[in-house]
């Protein structure tokens, strides 16, 4: 019965295609969720830094009477970073904030009294640690974005990604071009 055979084959093909569609779609959803999750990890660390800064400024105020602009700039940069809406804006503002903090700690070298303040040293250590954690979460986020973007852009997943509106995500603060490339592994 050639007729029945043909319908059987057709049904099988349709089922396989439908299955592939569902699996690929779910895979994309899952990866997009990974990216979102990784972004919130960065957010947690950035918030931690925002919370530490007022304490730092409060501690420094009493000592750095001659260099008000230094810690005023930190406060200003913090406000700007907290108000940033897009990832692009956020990245720029965070970089400026890191810069102002660096200046502040450099200037603090001129104040031996401040350097002897236990509270200040604690804050300095914690901010340095937070900076490392921001780097770490950023790396995790960028790794996830790279996986997701590769999926969205390559055939045949790109057909589904295009149809259902999966868009490429932005990287967050890549230091070097090399980070954009997948790591080369030889087995």
């Amino acid at each position, binding site marked *: 019965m050639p007729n029945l055979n043909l319908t059987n084959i057709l049904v099988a093909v349709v089922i396989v295609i439908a299955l592939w569609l569902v699996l690929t779609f779910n895979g994309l959803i899952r990866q997009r969720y990974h990216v979102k999750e990784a972004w919130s990890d960065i957010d947690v660390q950035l918030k931690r830094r925002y919370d530490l800064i007022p304490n730092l400024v409060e501690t420094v105020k009493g000592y750095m009477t001659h260099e008000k602009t230094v810690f005023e700039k930190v406060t200003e940069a913090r406000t700007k970073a907290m108000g940033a809406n897009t990832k692009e804006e956020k990245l720029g503002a965070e970089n400026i904030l890191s810069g102002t903090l660096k200046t502040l700690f450099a200037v603090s070298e001129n104040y031996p009294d401040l350097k002897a303040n236990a509270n200040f040293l604690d804050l300095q250590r914690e901010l340095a640690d937070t900076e490392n954690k921001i780097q*770490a*979460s950023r790396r*995790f986020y960028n*790794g996830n974005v790279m*996986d997701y973007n590769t999926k969205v852009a390559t055939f045949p997943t790109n057909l589904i990604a295009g149809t259902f509106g999966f868009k490429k995500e932005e990287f967050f603060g890549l230091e070097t071009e090399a*980070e954009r490339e997948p*790591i*080369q592994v*030889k*087995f």
Partner: protein
Amino acid sequence: MTLYTQKSSNIRKTWLFFGLFLIIVIGIGWAFSRIYANPSILYFAVIFSVLMNVIAYWYSDKIVLKMARAIPVEHKNAPELYHIVENLSIAAGLPMPKIYLIREKQPNAFATGRNPKHAVVAVTEGLLEKLDRSELEGVLAHELSHVGNRDMLLSTVIVVLVGFVSIISDMFLRSAFWGGLGRRDDREDGQTGAILMIVGIALSILAPIAAMLIQLAISRKREFLADTSSALLTRYPEGLASALKKISSDATPMRAANNTTAHLWLDDPFKGRKKTSWLRKLFATHPPIEERIKRLREISV
């Protein structure tokens, strides 16, 4: 590439092993029930071995930590170690594992725990003393990669499979010697029966060895993979490479070294017997250090 990719591939492999395991169990169960009228001994053995391994899997972390005499570490006792682990788990997207310290002078480390939520990373005192920060980062990233790659899950399932194969072969050998398969001799002429017997005995001797070799090969492959993932996490493969060099050239013995846990450690805790003949390579839980360092240096970040 993130650890997510590795994780899903490992979980897939675990299911594959489970599937294979089931097929083999059913197949052998069927064969035995054909040979004997009463397969209850076999069922008992299967249930027993599975149960044993499930328990082992569930309590493996506690047992292993007890065996190594490890003590938990708080943030205030070792803030630097704590921060390194914290940062690496953020970079790996893993929950913060518990950290344990082992009072041993040999620099070494291991990771255990049935899933990332119950993960444990243990380091020896010697490791903290002898390595600098970037080396320590490489080692800890290697251990965290084992957690992230779900290597514990995979290796436990493999242990179940290997244990099962040895039980089956053992049973076959016993029954062959005590004439349990005697029914066959009556029918055929002696020759075919004898050949079948010899093949059966040869297989039951070779199968467990083959299974064990597969287990060891997988264990070695997981080490390479964890090395690679470590390089991925720290983006500095030289850190782990130089740590491995230091660890391999360090001859301090370990008091808590034990055959059953040897495959868990960063490097083989039994030191001294340094010859890498093909036979030793075949039975090693870890790939030779020189090869691991060579591969790490081939990674371009």
